[in-house]
């Protein structure tokens, strides 16, 4: 039997008048049990939360206007609670803080920044990494995928446990062979196009799913019903389930939507259901899913001929079965499949991973934890700083505390009073921090790079607020404890006798403050080194020449639709037509189409290149996804492609309009290819063979960064589009003005040529590059921000301590000046004091940073985690800040007038 949701129950209990609490919570518990029996635990909890949500306002209204029920009114009043003294402490704390507004403001500001930043980052980390998936018993959900020995097609694996998608042939063989899963489901994403008669075609993000997926995830549509197995058969598959979002967007949440039809690529689909908001997009990936349709395995993918690695397989473990046991069994299954199909499945393993780990990925996880660690350091610095401020205030309050102690306040009472003050500070700043975090979370959410899962789930929710509250208590205790313990054992006689100075306590306090400054500096060094490393990585990235001119370039994908069950048709003529017409459009300088992927795009085509007459390089095992040594990226392009992107010609000529279907086969190679196949030779005029066809090299162009700026250029060749078969291609346009300015005209042209094909994934090249750099930019901005916060807060700490030292030593300084010390010597004396603390902090922080930045290593680019420049930058920044912070107190010291000081004694 499950319990009602605890937080909701507490909230309810709190909001109710005391006299009613028992009866109403009892009612809810009883009905909750009923709902659980009827509809399951999830539904019951949802019901309970809704009840609480709707009851809060009436409860509170009632609690305020009639604190007792009529039934309870007759009972005698309860005895006053012992927390009345707590209330008086609280009132006292408010007064104490209000009487020192500058201290209070600085402390609140520092804490607000620290807690706010931590809360914001935590809400991101929680949503992406920590929180469980929103499914019933989600711990039993696993992902199953294929693994190839030696990494995937993008090179060696960065995450050794990473799974690839599965091939339908293997998925079909897993189903009967396994005994460890309760259910297995598969899904594949796809873009479908909706063709409303008379309207512009529109793309929908569609998930093709097996009927079993609903059982695996234990989700059901809120309207209508799930798919059945007999809808997984070609011909009966034209049924669709809408996502909640699409239902609202397109059908205005009409309840009678079931039974209507949607005209999709291969016919009209009947709407049979609407998914609940939390289930419609199971993995909160971007872009959100619009539509679920049944997954039908094509006949061609039931036999092992070609390879298509695209299925995402999700399974639910049988109760009590561990991931390890499932992995062991799937190893056997995979071995049996490999034995039965030795060629097709060579080296092909199966991996089983907890679904959450699979979705999040080791790299994202460590990135998130690194951010959390960095913001945690900011919070620690903030705590150290406020502790420092509190100790400084303690000197001023010594007398007050001594008076209270003399009047009979016990030590516990004194400590409690002081702790309440710091907790009050923490609570108020947490309230401000939540407002700050509300804003920061939105900014962070929009700044998350593509590929980070569950971004949609990022929000300030109960969990995050709970964490913020816990954080606030913790920080309150952390920075309040030392000063409170210190201050609460006053030396009564000295403090009361001499108004200002308790020499002994003062020195101990001074040491504590110095230690806190050292700690602040050390922590700030770690942050600043991290910030410098990330800024350095970003700068290194910006310095890279992509090899082409990315400005003023608009790109779009054109994919004519395939007839169901057959390959996509050759659309070369249409593509050429589009290029010809777009080139004539106003505002277009050059236009071209490319099949095989644009730079910074997501798709590419790999083939093999050999030189006739030469022995081909030794071939490795030919498994899908592995690169053979003569693998080469191949693109087929229209004549103006290189001019459009601004790729330089190094020798020979560009592709021209004369390189038609009937002309001799030609190819342009990039410099890497020339270097690899024809080192020290003139490549132009040579004959190469690609896919078994011989062709003449007519030109050599410069290398460009194709996959991302961080990956070095690879061998690449360009074939004339006219001499190839092309079913989909990307349009690349160089504009004279703002790239999106030509879009409406280009859309019209494209629709004129291919009436039912919308332009897809329309982006400028600058946007594509920006996406590739999004994570680095975010890292740089966040770490830079944390570094600046750390620097400013610790500089404030240094200033505070120095100012205090100077005020304590005014007399000594006066004597020194009277005895003939020069002003520069006095400044040197004070600054020397500060610098000693800073240097100790720098050393400790430097050593710490040396070890800690190693964790950031995988996120750096173009420099080492121990790059001396980063350390130097951090040290210089801190020294400058420390100098500025101690200059003001030092100047004050130098301007001490000995006559005034000494007369005062």
């Amino acid at each position, binding site marked *: 039997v499950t319990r009602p949701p605890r937080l909701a129950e507490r909230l309810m209990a709190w909001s109710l008048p005391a006299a009613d609490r028992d009866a*109403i919570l009892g009612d809810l518990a009883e009905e909750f049990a009923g709902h659980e029996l009827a509809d399951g635990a999830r539904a019951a909890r949802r019901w309970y939360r809704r009840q609480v949500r*709707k009851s809060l306002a*009436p409860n509170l209204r009632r609690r305020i206007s009639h604190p007792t*029920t009529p039934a309870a009114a007759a009972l005698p009043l309860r005895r006053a609670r012992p927390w009345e003294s707590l209330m008086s402490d609280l009132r006292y704390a408010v007064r104490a803080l209000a009487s020192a507004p500058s201290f209070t403001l600085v402390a609140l500001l520092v804490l607000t920044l620290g807690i706010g930043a931590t809360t914001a980052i935590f809400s991101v980390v929680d949503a992406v990494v920590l929180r469980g998936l929103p499914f019933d018993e989600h711990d039993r959900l696993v992902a199953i995928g294929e693994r190839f020995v030696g990494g995937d097609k993008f090179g060696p694996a960065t995450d050794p446990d990473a799974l690839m998608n599965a091939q339908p042939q293997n998925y079909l063989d897993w189903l009967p062979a396994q005994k460890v899963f309760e259910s297995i489901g598969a899904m594949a994403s796809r873009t479908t196009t909706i063709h409303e008669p008379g309207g512009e075609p529109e793309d929908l993000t569609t998930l093709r799913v097996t009927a079993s997926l609903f059982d695996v995830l234990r989700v059901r549509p809120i309207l209508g019903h799930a798919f059945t197995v007999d809808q997984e058969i070609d011909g009966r598959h034209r049924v669709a389930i809408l996502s909640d979002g699409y239902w609202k967007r397109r059908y205005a949440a009409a309840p009678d939507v079931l039974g209507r039809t949607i005209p999709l690529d291969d016919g009209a689909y009947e709407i049979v259901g609407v998914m609940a908001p939390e289930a419609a997009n199971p993995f909160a990936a971007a872009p959100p899913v619009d539509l679920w349709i049944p997954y039908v395995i094509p006949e061609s993918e039931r036999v092992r001929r070609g390879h298509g690695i695209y299925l995402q397989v999700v399974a639910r473990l049988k109760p009590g079965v561990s991931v390890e046991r499932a992995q062991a069994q799937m190893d056997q299954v995979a071995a049996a499949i490999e034995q039965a199909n030795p060629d097709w499945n060579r080296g092909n393993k199966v991996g089983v991973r907890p679904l959450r780990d699979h979705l999040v990925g080791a790299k994202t996880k460590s990135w998130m934890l690194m951010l959390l660690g960095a913001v945690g350091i900011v919070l620690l610095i903030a705590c150290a700083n406020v502790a420092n401020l509190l100790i400084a205030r303690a000197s001023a309050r010594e007398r007050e505390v001594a008076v209270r102690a003399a009047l009979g306040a016990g030590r516990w009472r004194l400590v409690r009073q002081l702790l309440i003050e710091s907790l009050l500070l923490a609570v108020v700043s947490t309230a401000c921090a939540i407002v700050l975090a509300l804003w920061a979370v939105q900014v962070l959410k929009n700044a998350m790079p593509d590929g980070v899962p569950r971004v949609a789930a990022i929000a300030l929710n109960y969990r995050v607020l709970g964490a913020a509250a816990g954080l606030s208590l913790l920080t309150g205790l952390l920075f309040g404890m030392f000063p409170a313990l210190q201050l609460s054992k006053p030396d009564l006689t000295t403090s009361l006798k001499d108004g200002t100075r308790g020499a002994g306590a003062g020195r101990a306090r001074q040491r504590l403050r110095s230690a806190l400054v050292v700690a602040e500096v050390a922590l700030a060094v770690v942050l600043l080194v991290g910030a410098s490393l990330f800024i350095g990585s970003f700068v290194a990235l910006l310095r890279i020449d992509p090899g082409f001119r990315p400005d003023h370039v608009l790109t779009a994908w054109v994919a004519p639709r395939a007839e169901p069950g057959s390959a996509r048709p050759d659309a070369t003529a249409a593509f050429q037509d589009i290029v010809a017409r777009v080139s004539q459009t106003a505002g277009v300088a050059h236009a071209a189409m490319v099949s095989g992927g644009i730079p910074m795009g997501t798709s590419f085509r790999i083939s093999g290149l050999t030189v006739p007459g030469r022995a081909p390089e030794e071939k490795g095992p030919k498994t899908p996804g592995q690169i053979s040594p003569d693998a080469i990226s191949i693109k087929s392009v229209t004549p103006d492609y290189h001019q459009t992107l601004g790729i330089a010609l190094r020798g020979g000529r560009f592709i021209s309009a004369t390189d038609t279907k009937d002309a001799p086969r030609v190819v342009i190679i990039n410099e890497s290819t020339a270097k690899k196949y024809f080192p020290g030779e003139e490549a132009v005029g040579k004959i190469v063979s690609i896919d078994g066809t011989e062709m003449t090299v007519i030109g050599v162009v410069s290398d460009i960064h194709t996959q991302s700026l961080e990956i070095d250029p690879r061998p690449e060749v360009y074939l004339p589009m006219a001499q190839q078969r092309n079913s989909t291609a990307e349009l690349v346009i160089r504009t004279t003005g703002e790239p999106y300015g030509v879009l409406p005209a280009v859309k019209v042209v494209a629709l004129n040529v291919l009436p039912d094909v919308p332009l897809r994934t329309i982006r400028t090249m600058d946007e594509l590059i920006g996406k590739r750099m999004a994570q680095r930019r975010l890292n740089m901005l966040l770490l830079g921000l944390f570094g600046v916060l750390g620097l400013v807060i610790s500089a404030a700490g240094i200033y505070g301590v120095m100012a205090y030292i100077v005020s304590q030593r005014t007399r000594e300084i006066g004597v020194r000046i009277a005895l003939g010390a020069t002003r520069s010597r006095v400044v040197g004396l004070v600054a020397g004091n500060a610098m000693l603390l800073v240097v100790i902090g720098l050393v400790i922080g430097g050593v710490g940073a040396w070890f800690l930045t190693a964790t950031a290593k995988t996120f750096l680019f173009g420099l080492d985690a121990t790059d001396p420049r980063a350390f130097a930058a951090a040290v210089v920044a801190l020294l400058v800040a420390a100098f500025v912070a101690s200059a003001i107190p030092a100047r004050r010291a130098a301007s001490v007038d000995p006559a005034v000081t000494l007369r005062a004694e």
Partner: protein
Amino acid sequence: MRPAALGEFEQCLLLAVLHLGSDAYGVTIRQEIETRTERDVAIGALYTSLDRLERKGYLRSTMSDPTTVRGGRSKRYFTITAAGATALRESRARLARMWDGLSADLRRGRS
């Protein structure tokens, strides 16, 4: 003195208590209203009105002994008072007078 007019929801509550007889407490009252009027009432709002009716003297409530099914919590049982029954009757009569003389079509449309 003529009792103050009852709101529609207050009438629902009193009627539910009457229907339920000796078994009228939070859960059953809520469910009675839900099944008869297809109206999902939040428990907090329910008790607000129950309290008001008790304060007006139309309902009386007693606490039961704690029961284990409810996590060891007691139930608050409600019974209708004579004043409550009068107020209910009066409300009905007032409405009936308002309906008087209206066309039969509209009356039928109601049921």
